[in-house]
């Protein structure tokens, strides 16, 4: 479509010619618009397929890090000697750390944080209310996302008479 741009004295075109020209232009624009939309749609499909694939293999490196731990545990079970278990645990923690899985292990006296901790019991205590009395089970976070909150017991003010600690987590 490299037409000459300089046209000396253009002949006045007939209406039909103008219409045909305009229609051709519309058709051409419509086609390029459709192609752009289709391209976007295909890009979306590709991105989705890629994301699915990425999800599928995201575990790869993590899983690889766990294999030596399995080896060690198997050896421990076979040898009936548990002296290496501690080392194996270290291996496992290393593998978790490498994949950015970090412990949530609050110290007693720290403030209870429902974004990272789960209260299993409220115990009457001398300690400041709403602080952690004990950690029952550590929690874990992957980057900034909590995989599992730390299970803790939380201090509550010593009221009139010491009530029984509530121990239900049933919230539904």
């Amino acid at each position, binding site marked *: 479509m490299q037409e000459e741009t300089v046209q000396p004295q253009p002949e006045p075109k007939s209406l039909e010619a103008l219409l045909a020209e305009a229609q051709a232009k519309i058709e051409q624009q419509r*086609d390029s618009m459709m192609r752009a939309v289709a391209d976007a749609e*295909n890009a979306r499909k590709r991105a989705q397929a890629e994301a699915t694939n990425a999800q599928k293999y995201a575990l790869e490196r993590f899983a690889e890090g766990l294999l030596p731990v399995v080896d060690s545990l198997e050896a421990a079970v076979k040898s009936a000697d548990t002296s290496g278990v501690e080392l194996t645990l270290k291996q496992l923690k290393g593998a978790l750390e490498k994949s950015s899985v970090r412990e949530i292990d609050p110290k007693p006296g720290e403030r209870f944080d429902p974004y990272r901790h789960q*209260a299993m019991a409220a115990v009457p205590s001398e300690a400041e209310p709403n602080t952690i009395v004990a950690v029952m089970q550590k929690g874990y976070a992957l980057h900034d996302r909590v995989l599992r909150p730390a*299970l803790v017991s939380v201090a509550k003010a010593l009221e009139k008479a010491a009530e029984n600690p509530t121990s239900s987590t049933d919230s539904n």
Partner: protein
Amino acid sequence: MAKIIGIDLGTTNSCVAIMEGGKPKVIENSEGARTTPSVVAYTDDGEILVGAPAKRQAVTNAKNTVYAVKRLIGRRFEDKETQKDIKLMPFKIVRADNGDAWVEVRGKKIAPQQVSAEVLRKMKKTAEDYLGEEVKEAVITVPAYFNDSQRQATKDAGRIAGLDVKRIINEPTAAALAFGLDKQMKKDAKIAVYDLGGGTFDISIIEIADVEGEKQFEVLSTNGDTFLGGEDFDQRLIDYIVTEFKKEQGVDLAKDVLALQRLKEAAEKAKIELSSSQQTEVNLPYITADQSGPKHLNMKITRAKFESLVDELIERTIEPCRIAIKDAGVSAKDIQDVILVGGQTRMPKVIDKVREFFGKEPRKDVNPDEAVAIGAAIQAGVLKGDVKDVLLLDVTPLSLGIETLGGVMTKLIQKNTTIPTKATQIFSTADDNQTAVTIHVLQGERDMASGNKSLGQFNLTDIPPSPRGMPQIEVTFDIDANGILHVSAKDKATGKENKIKIQASSGLNEAEIQRMVKDAEAHAEEDRKTLELVNARNQAEALVHSVRKSVKDYGDKLDAGEKEKIETAIKDAEGVLKSEDKAEIDAKAQALAQAAQTLGQKMYAEQQAQAQAQQGGAQQSAEGESGKKDENVVDAEFTEVKDKKTGS
């Protein structure tokens, strides 16, 4: 353009979805979950927690942690349901000045609308974080049995959360939309929506009517049980494990909060697992300890066992179904479709029971946890005009490509690609001095050309004679908006081009397309083998070709014994080219490659010598171009250029 979001405001969990690129999408909240617990907590330092964090602190703050407020919204304090809740809930339910049921937290009376607004605000924020822009409008779902005041209250909750609620729709209607039932039903149809969620069970019979081209949904009847859901299923399993463990080990796990928590998580996982496998194992080492030392919990649970534990729960859903059908004035056989909503409907036994009762296969092709939110998003899209006005673009139902060396189908356009689209790939020749190629256009999913449908073919001739793999032939597939396929082939050296136009669809109907897709799946293994065989053959052939050429050029540098050995290997390899045994071909090709190694060394030494004597000039560039030997069109003897590089 701001979006309208769709929110499933549930009794136990809530979920938010939007329309994106014409498709509904459920959005993950900041904790990475696709559903958010409908729990709101008011802490002593004035903070308001919503969702999982609220749930986690419930034990320390039971009186100020509000859940299942959906049971109260829009109700009077005197209502029977309210009175029932007062007995069950750990938080305080009070009578507001206007006679409504409100809750009291931290000494302040607040309306259920305000509590629900906190959940809605969180859902709004979830959508905003994903979209990166403010959201102002929403479609919210409510149970079909909600009356006007409950609906209005839900709408007000939205207003409080800063959302203009464009529409309140019924949950079963939303589910039907998510399943696309409004489009699939040709004429008026009655459908059943069986919704077994986390804490509630609802059955609705709805009618989809076509009123002047527009689909209308009418709820004919509803029934259910507001205290029956997936959590009861979990509890049954937990109770069973606790009892068994006590029998075996003599320790009551129910008394140990930590053990119980671990068991709760494990039981839910086991329940989910048993929906897809026949047996699972609950394995919790060091679950507890007594004087004798640590105790481990290791229990096998079969699907049959679990089914027997919850059979009575499933049975309890059937009576409401019976009543709903009766109330709708229909019989089970009048129901065209049954759809399953709520996570617990993933359980095979539930599906069986529903199938048995309604006498037809229930639909479960939409994620049951998300169907209602998805339906709300679809409704939002309709309101926005997103859904109605999308440019309807077709997709190619089957892959398109050409036949290449060895009868292989090389795909240029994958199936389900949105059209109009264009794809280009460079191919080359398979023989020395090949002057023409045949472009054989194919449609289908099979790896081998013969298994696919032929759409047409044409030749590109007058390719200047040159060694195999040298010519660059650019093949372009272009499907325009009307579905017409244009295939062109162009010799990049000469610019000579030939093309073909293939009319849309080429007469394949939906059934044929399905058959071809199925066919490809069925033959995938067989095709893969053939493909490997062809590849092995092609590689061996290319090797024979290149070694033979080298022998011709450098043979005089070899002693007779070496030459003899190589020529035998060439003959051997050629002898098995027609073989159907891939291993045999590979072995002979391997042997040939090994035999040719000495030749390679000789060639290398030669080249180095020549490089030193640079002025030798174009010593070997014009080899072989002795002219047109045969003008025969070699049928589809294509090799892909990029394959060629890795091939030999």
